[in-house]
């Protein structure tokens, strides 16, 4: 191939933008949903009700031990067999990513909750706060702050993993770049472009959160 020709970047921009919007939308929805459901799962895992803890644990272990691509594909292929009606690629992607990421966020929140010293729970109880109140006002705010860097790392992983939706034909940024690359026969240039975009976004995301972390970090 020899020489590279980066002039292909210019006409690709509208497609890259559309793909990127999809990627960002997917990341955002899956992150929000994943953190909310993940936190609930974490509470279930730590709950004294054994069956609840066991079910949540089994769900998390299952999700964590299969490759994401498989989950994406399975969901897309198998759900219509079960429900009788097909789901669109985007809906399918959103549901799958949320369900999958919830398992990972669950583990993060669980260790976050456990990282709060036992004495804090005691102090909250000793003041007469109930279980739920102690959780909401004392434990979770500290858990989230303690886990902020890990939550970020997982979100970066999620952002990168959205490229796996190629498996079900949804058009994310990588896919858009890929198609432009094929049309103009400049696949390498387009891959380089998407690498740069991913890097720029992920890197600035991690810088931004490092700043944020400094601001919200608990003064000790």
């Amino acid at each position, binding site marked *: 191939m020899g020489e590279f020709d980066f002039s292909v970047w210019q006409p690709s921009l509208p497609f890259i933008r559309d793909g990127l919007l999809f990627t960002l939308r997917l990341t955002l929805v899956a992150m929000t949903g994943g953190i909310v459901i993940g936190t609930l799962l974490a509470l279930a895992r730590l709950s004294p009700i054994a069956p609840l803890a066991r079910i949540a644990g089994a769900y998390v272990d299952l999700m964590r031990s299969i490759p994401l691509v498989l989950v994406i594909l399975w969901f897309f292929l198998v759900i219509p067999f079960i429900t009788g009606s097909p789901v669109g690629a985007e809906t399918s992607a959103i549901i799958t990513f949320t369900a999958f990421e919830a398992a990972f966020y669950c583990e993060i929140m669980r260790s976050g909750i456990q990282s709060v010293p036992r004495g*804090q729970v005691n*102090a*909250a109880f*000793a003041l*007469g*706060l109930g279980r739920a109140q102690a959780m909401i006002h004392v434990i979770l705010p500290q858990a989230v702050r303690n886990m902020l860097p890990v939550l970020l790392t997982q979100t970066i992983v999620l952002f990168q993993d959205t490229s796996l939706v190629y498996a079900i034909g949804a058009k994310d940024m990588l896919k858009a770049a890929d198609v432009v690359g094929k049309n103009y026969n400049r696949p390498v240039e387009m891959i380089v472009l998407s690498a740069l975009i991913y890097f720029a976004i992920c890197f600035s995301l991690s810088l931004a959160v490092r700043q944020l972390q400094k601001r919200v970090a608990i*003064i000790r």
Partner: protein
Amino acid sequence: MIEIRNVSKWYGQTQVLNGCNTHVAKGEVVVVCGPSGSGKSTLIKCVNGLEPFAQGTITVDGVSVGDPKTDLPRLRARVGMVFQHFELFPHMSVEQNLALAQVKVLGRSVEEAAARGVALLDRVGLREHAAKFPGQLSGGQQQRVAIARALAMDPICLLFDEPTSALDPEMIGEVLDVMVELARTGMTMMCVTHEMGFARKVARRVVFMDHGEIVEDAPVAQFFDAPASERAKSFLARILRH
């Protein structure tokens, strides 16, 4: 006020409390001491139900702590507790620390809670630190905030678990001063501490524990001058020598 009758507790196989009996009358200060691991923290946490116990009964102001029908959060709201490591909520400012339970548990209005908070900060000499976070205060200041937080709930009695043992020596005094002042105002207090000076000054009785048992439960003067058991004697020797 506090009645502890025949309380025993196990962690798995190991017994950490063994038939403990004692009581604290209204307005009385009782000091609990003993070697590390003897069960002092466990006992005091049983009093407000932070630790469940297997046998025996504890009643606080007539309410049985071990009774499953007891509304524990309500009981705890009336019993203040101060911990060795302060356990202020590090993500909240001092005033928020004082207000949280007043608002959420007692249902006070935010203004009411703030006013009570300021009054108590004044009492422990920390009024100007209301907006700071715990991490910005020295250990002694944090512990005084923790005492104010317990007092904000207008408790009928206070439990202390080694309130000065995590402090730098120069800060111990300022915390003990607050505690002595509390005792003088007639607060009912049960204190786990090794500050024997404090015990001599304000305690009515000393409870000495070892291996989960209450080995000695005696008036202050008698405990220091003529401890009945060998174990208490050697403990006092070790602790007072240096």
